């Protein structure tokens, strides 16, 4: 003999959504003697009482009854979903670099240097990260937004001020300034 309470428990735990009393009644619709609302309610209360000391609890929410992780255990369970920090695309980094080094700058100006258009997504992501913000409008047709870096950007990049930013040349210094770009230039010239 299958216990009705076990069926209700199984249904609530597997449904993936809260179940109303009517949902539960529908489970037993084909029964010769389907349980009435009072009987179901009694089962639910019994099930809720059985949660004592367990990892889950049975609660009533707006759309019905639902099993959920016991509140005190929430932060333990959340460790299952430790998100990895997102990777940033090259396009995003290039856009950020231009905003940081050439601020204030319009989107059109970024596009001019990059040679490709800058997607709205990139601008939005940078704004959501709070690394850039609009600091004004350029006196030009369309009054385009001028972007600049934020204090949060400095914090996240471990900088005290923009003056702490290394220059481009410094980066190339590591690979010996003179050597790095020159051979390429010559190569190009020979080919053409």
């Amino acid at each position, binding site marked *: 003999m299958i216990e009705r309470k076990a069926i209700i428990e*199984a249904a609530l*735990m*597997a*449904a*993936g959504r809260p179940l109303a009393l009517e949902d539960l009644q529908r489970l037993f619709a084909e029964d010769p003697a389907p349980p009435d609302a009072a009987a179901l309610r009694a089962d639910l209360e019994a099930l809720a009482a059985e949660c004592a000391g367990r990892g*889950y609890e049975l609660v009533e929410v707006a759309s019905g009854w*639902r*099993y*959920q*992780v016991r*509140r005190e255990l*929430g*932060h333990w*369970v*959340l460790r*299952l*979903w430790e*998100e*990895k*920090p*997102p*990777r*940033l695309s*090259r396009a995003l*980094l*290039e856009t*950020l*670099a*231009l905003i*940081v*080094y*050439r601020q204030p*700058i319009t989107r059109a*100006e970024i596009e*001019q*240097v*990059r*040679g490709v258009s800058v997607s709205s997504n990139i601008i939005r992501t940078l704004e959501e*990260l709070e690394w850039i913000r609009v600091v004004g409008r350029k006196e030009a047709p369309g009054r385009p937004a001028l972007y600049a870096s934020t204090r949060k950007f400095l914090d*996240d*990049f*471990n*900088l005290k001020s923009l003056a702490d*930013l*290394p*220059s*481009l*040349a*410094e*980066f*190339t*210094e590591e690979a010996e*300034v*003179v050597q790095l*770009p*020159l051979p390429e*230039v010559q190569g*190009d010239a020979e080919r*053409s």
Partner: protein
Amino acid sequence: MNGPESLAPAEDVRGEALARVRGEPLLELPRDLYIPPQALEVVLESFEGPLDLLLYLIRRQNLDILDIPIAEITRQYMEYVELMRELRLELAAEYLVMAAMLAEIKSRMLLPRPAAPQDEEEDPRAELIRRLQEYEQFKQAAGDLDALPRVGRDLFPLRVQAPRDDRPPPRPRVGVADLLGALQEVLRRARLEEHHHVQREELSVRERMTRVLDRIAEAEDGVAFTSLFTLEEGRRGVVVTFLALLELLKLGLLECIQSTPFGPIQVRAAGGDDRA
């Protein structure tokens, strides 16, 4: 359905008996091919191919797979193939290939055979039997798999509500070096793409070299590398300045100085104390 009895004894079963079923010689073919047309269509479409159809013909008559009455099975097989054609079911080419194979086996079996029957491999049916057995094995395995309890049909993993995740999303991990690398890449690309345009521009590299030298001459301790670029000139301007700087460095007219590790780079006129 294929109990031990169905393995026919080694005695001659190719005589007048068409086949032996559970040890009993079968002298007459079951005439049970008639099926109502609508049902027939369903049946025909449900075959998974020629091997499946052949197995069906064999199994429905309880014939021994090891000793198929080729002539009769071929006849029945062709009847089904014809029916499929009549009903305009999509007839896969494989069915016709099998028909040809059956016809070939049949003709080989009509050839006179040595008095003493030899090994199994002499039997022209051997390859067909092997394939039928192999297919039947996996047909059975498919049924066995289907009979296993399966998530979504028989098994329902629990989905107890997880707590809401209020944690802030993780920040991307990126450093100044990444930024600088990106900037360098932009400029490198700009240079490569625009290199051939430079000649057409008013801003020639030569002219820019002079201007850069002028600017550096004005400043005693040189100027910041980045300050040499003027964004208002656009991409081409940046490229031209960059090329001018490279030319000047190559010619030994300029040098780059970094006073502190990771400090800003200064560009100044060459010919200081450290040059001979």
